[in-house]
């Protein structure tokens, strides 16, 4: 099982990155100029962040992503086993049941398109 490997490389990469950042910060010049610390705002004094309006569309996209992502994930076990089902003679049944599922998927997608949930002005 590669779990140990995964953990090892993760930790290694994190340490590697932190090390590089540490070295860079030690080697880099430091100067404390309050203007330099300011948030970037095209050269003018920074505006209050509260005034930024962020569209709920991002959030909608994320919700739809979750839903469709899960539907796609459901297709994965089907996709691996579909050949086995075909050879055991249940192919048509599984195909049809999956098509019914995909139909629901398509219906959802269609609805979202039609309700303009996917439109960015």
């Amino acid at each position, binding site marked *: 099982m590669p779990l140990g490997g995964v953990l090892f490389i993760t930790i290694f990469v994190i340490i590697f990155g932190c090390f590089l950042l540490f070295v860079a910060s030690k080697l880099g010049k430091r100067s404390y100029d309050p203007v330099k610390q300011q948030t970037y705002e095209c050269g003018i004094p920074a505006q209050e962040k509260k005034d930024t309006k962020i569209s*709920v569309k991002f*959030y909608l996209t994320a*919700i739809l992503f*979750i*839903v469709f992502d*899960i539907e796609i994930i459901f297709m994965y076990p089907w996709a691996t086993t579909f050949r086995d089902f075909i050879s055991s003679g249940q192919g048509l049944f599984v195909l049809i049941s999956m098509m019914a599922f995909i139909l629901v998927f398509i219906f959802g997608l269609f609805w979202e398109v039609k309700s303009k949930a996917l439109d960015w002005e």
Partner: protein
Amino acid sequence: MRARKVAHMPSNFILEVGLPHYLVLSSLLFVTGMAGVLLRRNAIVMMMSIELMLNAVNLSFVAFSRYLGLLEGQVMVFFVMTIAAAEAAVGLALVVAIFKRFKEVNIRFFEHLKG
């Protein structure tokens, strides 16, 4: 590497990892999540705690599935994941709606919804 001493009774709680270990871990995560639900005031954090509880349950499902040799546990986890995701989506949609109204996600603001 995988040669494990097969013994009926564990000689050592630390060296023999089995089902009870996973169950204890799962229950610890569960009560952590429960504490979050009971104690946090931020609605989103509460929902996250609920996700944590669901995950804890998933863990015990998988552990049972492994140690009882039944795949049903894994199927159940699959379903739980889906439902948890659905719950998160709808719950957060509610939170967004509330936030739009009150500009707050404190759970006490949900009291305005009582009849």
